[in-house]
């Protein structure tokens, strides 16, 4: 794939939590097929999966764009949900606005954004309350 950039686009439906993670699974499959090392694949898969879950829980879905070149994988997750009021607070482990219902589904422990930061090599959040959130995560290819 020397010199080429691969681009993938996914729409994440917001109405069905049980199906959340399909886009992340698809990306993981692509990365595996490209022969990237398992640690790199796992880092990107977890970051995306947490982001995808967030989109479904908080923002009624959204879109994911993934670009892969020789050096890195970049994923941009865009939603038009309520936005994040205090990003610094949202980045703290354990802090969450998720409902009891979401906790009963195994998420909402306030680990989503911290996990994305932990597993990615670069992460940026842009958010405006009322108009949505864009999260960019990047993982370097070893």
């Amino acid at each position, binding site marked *: 794939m020397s010199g080429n950039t691969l681009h993938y686009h996914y729409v994440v439906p917001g109405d069905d*939590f*049980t199906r959340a993670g399909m886009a992340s*699974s698809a990306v993981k499959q692509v990365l595996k097929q490209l022969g990237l090392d398992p640690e790199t694949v*796992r880092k990107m898969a977890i970051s995306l*999966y947490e982001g995808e879950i967030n989109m479904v829980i908080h923002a009624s879905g959204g879109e994911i764009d993934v670009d892969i070149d020789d050096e890195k994988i970049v994923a941009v997750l865009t939603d038009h949900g309520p936005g994040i009021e205090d990003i610094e607070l949202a980045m703290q482990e354990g802090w969450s606005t998720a409902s009891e219902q979401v906790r009963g*589904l*195994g998420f909402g422990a*306030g*680990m989503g954004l911290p996990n994305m930061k932990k597993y990615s090599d670069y992460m940026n959040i842009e958010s405006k309350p009322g108009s949505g959130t864009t999260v960019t995560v990047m993982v370097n290819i070893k």
Partner: protein
Amino acid sequence: MLIKEIQKILDAQLLVGESLLDTEVHTACGSDMMSDVLAFVKDQAVLITGLLNQQAIRTAAMMDMVCVIFVRGKQPSEEILEVAKENGIAVMTTSYRMFTACGMLYEAGLNGGLSTK
């Protein structure tokens, strides 16, 4: 430990993944909170959980785990099993409770992995 030995120890019913029965595993984790599994697990091969939904399987798949065990006799739906098939994950269900199931496997030689205390 082989996956078929886990099945025997827990007197579990294998629902998906017959071809994985001879796969060797060394480590496991038990949790109902998938965010914690994603945060703290490294190189564990088996997930023991009481969380009965597709996300339990997807979380295991993201972590490259090979086996999910549902405790307290929980029976996963066809949809859940379908996700397991797609991702090459063995699924079984045991009537033991979480604490007991974890204890039995630990006693038999499975451990929590190098990165955990």
